[in-house]
């Protein structure tokens, strides 16, 4: 059974498609992130699911029931907004209780439910606090409890961590995931931060210009991007413009490289090599997949040392584990090598639906 299903949903503003022909099936209890650059249609998709806007084409289903004639109020969706949207005139307790009050839940049941939720988000002691007395992170926890109070069919989070500072963002990220697991609620999480999406989702749906580019588990998205957009958007990458010759061969300038054999038509393509998959080669090794260049930059990233290497005018990023062994310094000549399975040709088009 699908918790949320989009069937070729489109939303148009004039001639501009905010969302075009998007299909997505989210299993019950699954955590799916919608990711993409701003203006890619991820928030519009979320609002279509919530029912704030109606699709121009296609259909939205919650628990396998079409929502075509069901308004926001009766959809039973829990929404968490970027700027918390707590009611400033109500205490934390009353904010959480809001959805229960609209449903006329008996006082005793309401009280125990709200207390249980506040405990779940770790705010038991702050029930009487006004929103303005709470930190941003605490406000967002209250907002999360408020959204969960109505036992929604689906929890929709619209960039819930964007307004918070880095430290809170990281801890709350995993807390959201923990709470989601505990309550077993179907969740759709909108973010522009691909790292955030990769770190907490069961599956990631990548959007661009209103269309779905690829849907898959984080590892899949990271290692096997469907096209150049995905390869470029997710993580840090080296993308070489060249020509795919078929059968795992790729031409970049004068170099004939042996790469992953992918079902991609021969022709102009980009070759994607993750910085951590590039290896500094001892100079006497064989000539297969070997590029020589000069170190032009060194960036200290804590556990990693990132080198910029200039190879025939093209800049390569190379990540080395920051161990104590001597790393090349600026202006050193180095040889880079990689195994064919770590180099993946990607085309301009091609999508992998979920």
């Amino acid at each position, binding site marked *: 059974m699908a918790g949320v299903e989009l069937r070729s949903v489109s939303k148009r503003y004039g001639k501009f498609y905010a969302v075009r022909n998007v299909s997505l099936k989210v299993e019950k209890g699954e955590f799916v992130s919608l990711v993409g650059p701003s203006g890619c249609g991820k928030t519009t998709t979320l609002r279509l699911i919530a029912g704030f806007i109606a699709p121009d084409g296609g259909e939205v289903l919650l628990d396998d029931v079409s929502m075509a004639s069901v308004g926001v*109020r009766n959809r039973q969706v829990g*929404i968490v907004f970027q700027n918390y949207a707590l*009611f400033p*005139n109500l205490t934390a307790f009353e904010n959480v209780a809001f959805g229960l009050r609209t449903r006329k839940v008996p006082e005793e049941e309401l009280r125990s439910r709200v207390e249980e939720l506040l405990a779940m988000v770790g705010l038991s002691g702050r029930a009487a606090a006004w929103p303005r007395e709470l930190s941003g992170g605490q406000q967002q926890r209250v907002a999360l409890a*408020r959204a969960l109070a109505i036992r929604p069919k689906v929890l929709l989070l619209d960039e819930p961590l964007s307004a918070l500072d880095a430290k809170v963002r990281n801890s709350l990220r995993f807390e959201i995931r923990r709470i989601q697991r505990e309550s077993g609620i179907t969740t759709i999480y909108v973010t522009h931060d691909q790292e955030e999406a990769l770190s907490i989702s069961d599956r990631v749906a990548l959007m661009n210009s209103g269309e779905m580019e690829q849907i898959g588990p984080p590892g899949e998205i990271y290692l096997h991007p469907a096209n150049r957009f995905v390869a470029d958007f997710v993580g840090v990458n080296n993308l070489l413009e060249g020509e795919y010759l078929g059968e795992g061969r790729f031409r970049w300038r004068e170099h004939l490289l042996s790469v992953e054999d992918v079902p991609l038509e021969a022709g102009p393509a980009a070759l994607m090599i993750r910085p951590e998959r590039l290896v500094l080669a001892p100079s006497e090794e064989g000539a297969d997949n070997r590029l020589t260049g000069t170190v032009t930059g060194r960036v200290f990233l804590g556990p990693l040392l990132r080198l910029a290497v200039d190879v025939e005018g093209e800049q390569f990023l190379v990540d080395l584990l920051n161990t104590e062994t001597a790393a090349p310094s600026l202006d050193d000549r180095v040889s880079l090598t990689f195994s064919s399975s770590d180099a993946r040709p990607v085309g301009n088009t091609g999508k992998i639906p979920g």
Partner: protein
Amino acid sequence: MLRRALWLSAGVMWFTYVLTPIALILVGSFGEKWFGTLLPTGFTMKWYGDLFSKTMYVRAMTMSLFIASLTVLINGLIGICSVYAVSVLRVRWLRRAFDFIILLPIAIPPVVMGLGLVQAFNWTSFSLVGTWQLLLGAHLVYTLPFMLRPLMANMEMLQWNILEEAGVSLGASPLFLATKVLIPNLIPGLLSGAVMTFAMSLGEFQLAVMVTGSSSQTYPVVLYQAFYVSTGFACAATTLLVLFSLLSLGGVLFLGHFFGFRGSSLALDS
């Protein structure tokens, strides 16, 4: 140094132009005689006795309080409905039009408005001139901008669109949202609007003098006539008006405190 000098001169001006006249009037209202001297001589309470024994003044004060209260009440309702409509419709030109419309009464002098009202509603068969209803209407239009300004600022700070979406997604009906979220959150704006409109209506003279008749005279109109009676009497009558203004201001502030509006830190400067 310059800052200090500026503060000092502001203080002196406030003292000279605001506090001194009020203080003199207060002193004068207890003075037996005030003629040719800097300060009045003798002490008496008789002016106040005179004031409360004259039904014209008591009735005018009642009328003034009645008109001012109704003005606040109706303008509060109009205000809430209008800022809600403007925020919900989200039409830009409507907002601009709205801004213009609410500024119009400020741009037009009350005398012009009063003349217009007398001309427009004075027919031989049926005349509204002289009725309190016409004055109420005039005061509503005249004071509405001062109710709307703080309400609009309040509404903007509230980010109502998002709060409304949150509320609706939690299953709230429009009525539930209005009574449990919108109005409680508009109380700061409503209070500052109420203080302004009440004070303006209570002390308004130009419209009142043109539009009212003997049965609907408001306090400022009769107060103006009091200066032809005697200085002491006029001072007592003026003191009463100041007293009522301050009392109503304090009352509104007390109400605000009583309703316990602590939930929001909305500061209203505009």
